[in-house]
């Protein structure tokens, strides 16, 4: 139980959790490599916290197995599992001092010199000077650090974090994100972090699993997920996306650099790399990130590897210093968002101007046309 010094891998195998008729987690499988920082990202009610609680042993899976390293822990009670949790509400024991809170797990396992170790853990989170206080007298950020120390001090095989930064204000949250990442690198433990904040997941995790309605939509490195979303939910929940509905009319072309030609309405054709498309025939959604779009004022001659749509009319301009966000209404296609970095200094494009939108073909991605364009758009946490 004590042996985990540098974390252990975690595997969920076809895990399902039902509460009566409600399926909270639906046939979910994932593997978290030892020593990695893994984020479960999704809107509230998507089953991410239930997944975490099954790893901790606080919920029993209806079906499926939970493995830590090579060991099947599905039937083990929580106090017999070498995992520790940082709860969303922190759940510090109000009747114990900060020091005794941190020493709690050590004392239960009869570890030698629990208080010395507790002091060390508190020093790691820079809270040792408040070791004698009661938790009620600490601020939210301080309680969060104590909760982290209380879990870390046990050197768990896997550390579970259930929205641990949810109750902190924005500035403190950013600061704690950096610190959590530092601590994870320092102690080298396996972290599983549950959050609905996509920015938080992307800045901290090595691997992000996007969850929706009890299933994993897509799993991968933050950059992979962002650059190549495979579902409309991921495209919209992780950052923003412009999704155009269309039909494949040509291709895939043969050879390297294979592309699909998609008719996005009224004869307008755009190209999508075949390897970046989920489907290669029939109804598809063509997606492009707003910062990959450029505004071009004339229907100028463009190279073959650039998609251009337009003309459209600028309906909104939001200048935020670093960048400007434009909304462009293109007849037949709807409103598209465009981010332009403020490199040239000040925008020349105004509301009402007629523009065309250009995007490199290699930045386009193709999704299944049966999906809802708005899936994941209005969900919480899209910061």
């Amino acid at each position, binding site marked *: 139980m004590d042996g985990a010094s540098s974390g252990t891998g975690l595997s969920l195998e076809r895990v399902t959790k039902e509460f009566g008729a409600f399926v909270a987690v639906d046939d979910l499988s994932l593997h978290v490599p030892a020593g990695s920082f893994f984020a479960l990202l999704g809107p509230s009610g998507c089953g991410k916290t239930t997944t975490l609680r099954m790893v901790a042993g606080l919920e029993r899976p209806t079906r499926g197995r939970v493995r830590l390293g090579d060991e099947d822990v599905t039937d083990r009670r929580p106090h017999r599992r070498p995992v520790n949790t940082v709860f969303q*509400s922190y759940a510090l024991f109000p009747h114990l001092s900060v020091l005794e809170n941190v020493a709690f797990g050590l004392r239960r396992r009869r570890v030698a010199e629990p208080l010395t170790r507790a002091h060390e853990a508190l020093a790691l989170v820079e809270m040792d000077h408040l070791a004698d206080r009661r938790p009620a007298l600490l601020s939210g950020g301080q309680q969060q650090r104590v909760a982290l120390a209380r879990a870390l001090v046990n050197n768990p095989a896997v550390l579970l974090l259930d929205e641990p930064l949810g109750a902190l204000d924005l500035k403190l949250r950013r600061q704690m994100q950096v610190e959590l990442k530092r601590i994870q690198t320092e102690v080298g433990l396996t972290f599983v972090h549950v959050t609905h904040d996509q920015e938080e997941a992307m800045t901290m995790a090595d691997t992000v699993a996007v969850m929706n309605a009890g299933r994993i939509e897509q799993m991968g490195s933050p950059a992979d997920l962002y650059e190549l979303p495979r579902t409309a939910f991921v495209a919209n929940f992780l950052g923003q996306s412009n999704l155009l509905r269309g039909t494949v009319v040509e291709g895939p072309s043969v050879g390297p650099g294979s592309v699909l030609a998609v008719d996005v309405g009224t004869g307008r054709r755009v190209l999508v790399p075949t390897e970046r498309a989920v489907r290669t025939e029939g109804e598809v959604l063509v997606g492009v990130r707003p910062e990959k779009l450029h505004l071009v004022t004339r229907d100028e001659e463009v190279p073959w590897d650039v998609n251009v749509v337009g003309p459209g009319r600028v309906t909104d301009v939001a200048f935020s210093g670093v960048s400007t966000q434009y909304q462009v209404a293109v007849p037949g296609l709807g409103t598209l968002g465009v981010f332009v970095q403020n490199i040239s200094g000040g925008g020349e494009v105004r509301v009402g101007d007629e523009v065309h939108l250009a995007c490199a073909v290699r930045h386009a991605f193709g999704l299944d046309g049966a999906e809802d364009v708005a899936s994941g758009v209005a969900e919480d946490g899209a910061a």
Partner: protein
Amino acid sequence: MSGTTAAAVTAGVTARPDPPAARAARWRIGEAVVPIIATLAFAYLLVPIVYTVAFSFNDSVRTNLVWRGFTLEAWRNPCGAPQVCRALVNSLQVGLIATAVATVLGTLIAIALVRYRFRGRALANLLVFLPMSTPEVVLGAALLAQFLSLRVNPGFGTVVLAHVMFCISFVVVTVKARVATLDPRLEEAAADLYASPVQAFWRVTFPLLLPGIAAAALLAFSLSFDDFIITNFNSGSFTTFPKFVYVSATRGIPPQANVIGSAMFVLALLLVVAVQLVTVSRRRRR
């Protein structure tokens, strides 16, 4: 003064909106009258206690109804009257046993009712209230009927059983309120930190419930110590302190009963003061 007051009162009744002067006058009356009423009310509440304490010092002969002069005789020899200390010891024994049993059982019931979902939970919740809402006379008589039909001789045992029964309700209600404020995540956190269910109970749940359990135990003890009606039905020849006082009232209550009553009152008062002092000093230390 009286002229303006009368004018103000009539103005207050007839004219509206109130002129500010009338409102001010009325307020002044309130300021003067409320303390008087409050003092009278407190006097009314406290007179019996003062009487009890005062007559514990009475130099009484057969009855303790007329003031005959000050003496410490009854305080020097509180067991002087026949049976009075026997009755007191009986009451303390019954109270301690009934409190211990009712507190343990009531606490377990309270935790179960709040924390677990089981068949018949709503019914149990309702039934626990019944002894509190049933008239004591009915409860006492019904209980005696039960004991007699079971051919159990009323005495010490039946009194303890009866007290446990009605004390449990109060313990459950008191502890339940405390359990409801307890964050279930704390017990999960304990389990997550390697505490077995038993350890989690003693290390986390119990210390956090302790103020509620202590309050429930005090309540149970005072209810048991005080009880006359149910006890009178179910005690046979066994005598508790309230029963002793009731029975001796017909021939004259000895001043020793006043002594014991006063002593109990002072003890309870000291206990409250001590608790307050501990709370204050603990708050300062933090």
